[in-house]
């Protein structure tokens, strides 16, 4: 039996209004060292975490959205974003940051980390995990 488990980090909350998004990201970064099979799910208000053009200067809170672009370096390369959640919020894939990783199995080609999925696909992804952490 393999020692590798499938970990899913489920993000359903918007950034800045509460700390869950930031502290979720802190878990993912630490968790990367454990070499598990990591995925992140963004649905409901969680999709707001990945939007472009965040500027927190006026509210005096640290802008952590650039950190998502560093996830590839931690081998966190599967960021599933639910299409229905985007649409309900008047958003589309173009409103999200570009996040990429270099695929070591494919001559370090740069590939997108964000994968837009349907609600049905998201349910399938959730049902395929060993450990689900909710934020």
């Amino acid at each position, binding site marked *: 039996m393999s020692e590798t488990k499938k970990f899913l980090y489920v993000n*359903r909350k918007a950034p800045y209004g509460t700390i869950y998004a930031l502290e979720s990201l802190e878990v993912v970064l630490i968790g990367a060292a454990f070499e598990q099979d990591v995925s992140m799910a963004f649905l*409901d208000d969680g999709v707001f975490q990945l939007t472009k053009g965040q500027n927190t200067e006026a509210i005096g809170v640290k802008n952590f959205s650039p950190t998502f672009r560093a996830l590839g370096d931690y081998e966190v390369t599967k960021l599933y974003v639910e299409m229905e959640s985007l649409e309900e919020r008047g958003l589309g894939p173009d409103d999200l940051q570009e996040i990429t990783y270099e695929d070591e199995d494919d001559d370090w080609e740069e590939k997108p980390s964000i994968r837009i999925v349907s609600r049905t696909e*998201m349910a399938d992804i*959730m049902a395929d995990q060993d450990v*689900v952490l909710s934020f």
Partner: protein
Amino acid sequence: MSTLHTVNKSPFGNGALLSCINHCKPGDAVLLIEDGVYGALAGSVVEHAVITCAPSVSIYVLEGDAEARGIGPAKRLPDVQSVGYDGFVDLVATHDRTQAWL
């Protein structure tokens, strides 16, 4: 392979129960705990969503939380089953994973 989903928010001001239901798969179970137990109320505006998902998904309430809030069996949807903390533990053990809809 199946999932135990827990929902701890009232479904009237918060979308967690609906989002949970929309991501359940046949054979899954949903356990309503804390303020989530209000989702078991008969005759409410979320009744339809709960009933519609019930044929393929088992819905439970945590008995202590329901009683704390004055929701006795007579006030609940007949599709909803009741468990204590020990039944909660059994549900965790008999499903392959637990997902909390926080």
